[in-house]
C-alpha cells in the first residue's frame, strides 16, 4: 500500500516541510552575524546575549509566566470543583444541559468575541472600583475565564472514564465526606487534574488575542511584545526570541509526551 502511493507520501512530506521551514529559517538567522539583511555573515550568539540584557523582554517573559501561573492555579481549582459538581450530583437533566452549554461556550466562541465581552465587563466594573483598570489583574481574570472551561472538560472526561463504582465501593466500606474525597476520589482524579492544569498553563502562555485586549501597559506578555515589535519590522533580536519560544514549546511537548508514556506504562 505504501509503495503504491507516492503522491500521498509526497504531499505529506511537503506539508511537514511547509510547517517547519519558516521556523527553521528563523532559528538559522537568529545566529547570523548581520544586523540588517538576510545574507549569511558568520555565526554569533550576540542576539541571544542582547536578549538577556533587554529589560523589556525579561519583564514580558516574567509577566507571561506570572499570569500563566496565577491563572492556572485559580482555574484548576474552580474548574475541578465545577467538574465534580456537574458529574457527581443528581441534577435535573435540563439544568445539566444549560450548565454544559455555559461551560462549552468559550470553546466554540471565536476568541475575539470573548475578548470584546471581557473588555466590556472590565469597563463596567471599573465604574464600581479602580481594581479593574487594564493591567495584570484584568489579564489574569481574562485568562481564568477561558481556562475554566478547558479544565472542566478535561477533568470531567476523567471523571466519566473513572465511573462511580470505586466511589460506591468506598462508601460501602463506610468512607464518607472528606475522607472519601481526599483518599479515594482525589488520588484517582489527580492525573486528570494535572492534565487540565497543563493544558490551561500552555493555553495561557500561548494566548494572544485575549491578552491583547485585556493587558495594560504594565502587563505586556511575550506574544504581545513580539507582535508589537514585529509591526516595526523584522530584527535579529526577534529571531532569537522566537527561536527561544519555539524551543520551549518543543521541550514542553516532549515532556508531555514522556509523561503520558510513563503513565501508560
Amino acid at each position, binding site marked *: *500500500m*505504501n509503495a503504491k502511493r507516492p503522491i500521498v507520501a509526497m*504531499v505529506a512530506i511537503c506539508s511537514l516541510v511547509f510547517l517547519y521551514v*519558516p521556523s527553521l529559517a528563523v532559528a538559522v538567522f537568529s545566529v547570523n552575524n548581520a544586523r540588517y539583511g538576510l545574507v549569511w555573515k558568520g555565526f554569533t550568539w550576540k542576539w541571544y546575549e542582547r536578549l538577556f540584557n533587554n529589560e523589556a523582554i525579561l519583564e514580558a517573559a516574567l509577566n507571561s509566566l506570572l499570569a500563566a501561573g496565577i491563572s492556572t492555579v485559580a482555574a484548576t481549582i474552580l474548574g475541578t470543583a*465545577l467538574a465534580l459538581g456537574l458529574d*457527581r450530583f443528581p441534577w435535573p437533566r435540563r439544568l445539566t444541559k444549560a450548565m454544559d452549554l455555559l461551560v462549552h461556550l468559550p470553546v466554540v466562541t471565536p476568541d*475575539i468575541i470573548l475578548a470584546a465581552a471581557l*473588555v466590556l465587563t472590565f469597563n463596567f466594573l471599573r465604574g464600581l472600583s479602580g481594581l479593574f483598570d487594564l493591567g495584570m489583574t484584568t489579564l489574569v481574570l481574562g485568562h481564568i475565564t477561558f481556562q475554566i472551561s478547558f479544565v472542566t472538560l478535561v477533568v470531567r472526561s476523567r471523571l466519566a472514564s473513572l465511573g462511580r463504582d470505586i466511589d460506591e465501593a468506598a462508601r460501602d466500606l463506610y468512607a464518607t465526606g472528606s475522607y472519601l474525597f481526599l483518599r479515594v476520589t482525589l488520588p484517582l482524579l489527580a492525573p486528570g487534574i494535572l492534565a487540565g492544569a497543563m493544558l490551561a498553563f500552555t493555553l495561557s502562555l500561548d494566548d494572544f488575542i485575549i491578552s491583547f485586549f485585556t493587558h495594560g501597559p504594565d502587563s505586556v506578555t511575550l506574544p504581545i511584545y513580539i507582535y508589537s515589535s*514585529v509591526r516595526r519590522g523584522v530584527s535579529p533580536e526577534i529571531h532569537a526570541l522566537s527561536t527561544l519560544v519555539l524551543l520551549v514549546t518543543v521541550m514542553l511537548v516532549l515532556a508531555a509526551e514522556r509523561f503520558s508514556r510513563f503513565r501508560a506504562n
Partner: protein
Amino acid sequence: MKDTLEPKDSETVAKTGTGPRLMNRTPDEDPGPGLVTWYGGIHRRSELYLKGSALMGPGLIWLLIFLALPTSALTLLSLAQRGDFGDIHWVWNVDNYKRLLGYGLFGWTPDHLIILGRSLWVGLLTTVACVALAYPLTFYIATRPPKLRTCLLLLLIVPFWTNVVVRTYAWMLILSPQLPPAKIAAFLGFIPEGAPLFPGSFATYIGLVSTFLPFMALPLYSSVERLNWELLEAARDLYASRWQVFTQAILPQTRPGLTVGVIVTFIPAMAMFVVTDLLGGAKYMLIGNLIQNQFGQSRDWPFGAALCLALMTLTLIGLFLYRRWGNPEGGPEKEGGKRS
C-alpha cells in the same frame, strides 16, 4: 424523581461501558418523598443540591459574570451609538446594523459587506486547503511503522502548540525580498523586483493554512488511526474508483475527526486577526481585524458589538451549513442502516 436519575446513569454506563457491573444498583426504587438513591445510599435531595451548588457555585458565577452576561450585553450594546469622545449613547436603534449593511452618511457602500463575505470565503478556502493536505498527511503518518509514527505525530503536535505570532513572524521572514520565494516570484513577474511577498492574499492564505493545518490534522488523525482498512480493500475489490473509495469507504469512517477539524479550523480562521494583520495588510481585512479596530483605535464599541454579533451569526451559519451539506450521507443512523 425517576427522570432525574435514569438519564444520567444510562449516560455514564454508555460512556464507560460498565453496564453489567452496575446491575445490582436499583435506581428505579423510590426511596420516599424528598429522598433520592444516589451512589448506592439514600440521601436527602435538598442536601445533595446544596453540596453540589457549593462545589459548582464559584465556577458557575465566574462564567456568568465574565462570560455569559457580557456576551449577552453585547447585544444591548449593539443598539447604542458612539458618542463624540468614544463614550456610549444609549439610543436604542439599529443604525449599527444598517451601517454594517453599507448604509452610511454618504449613501450605500459595500465595504463592510465585502469584509464579511471575505471572512466567510477565507474561512472556507482555508478549511478546504487544510482538509486537502490533512488527508494525505494523516494517512501517511498512520501507515508508518510505530516508532516513526510517534516521531511524525510529535512533529505535528509541536506546531499545534507554537504561538501564532511566532509562526506568522516566521512567514514574514521567509517571504521577505532577499530570500528565494520572493526572488522566484519576482523572476516570474508576479511582484516587482526587490518587493516582499507580503502583504497580500497569497501570504494570508499561506499563513492561515500553516496555522490551521495541525488543528485539522490532529483530530483527523484520531479517526484515521482507527480506520478499518479492510473496508477500503473491499471497496477496491468491488471496482470502486479512487474517488468512490474516498467518499464511500474513507469519508464515513473519518467523519467524527473531520467534523472536529472543520469546526476548529473554520471558526477561528474566519475570525483571525494576527495573521491577516501581519501578512494581509489593510487591503485584506477580515471581520476580526474590523472588530479589533472598533475596540482599539476607533473606540466605537457599539459598532464593534454589532460586528461581534455578525461574526457569531456567521459562525452559526457555518456550523449549520456544515451539518446540512457537509454530511451528504446523513447522520450516523443512516450509516448504520446502510451497513446492515
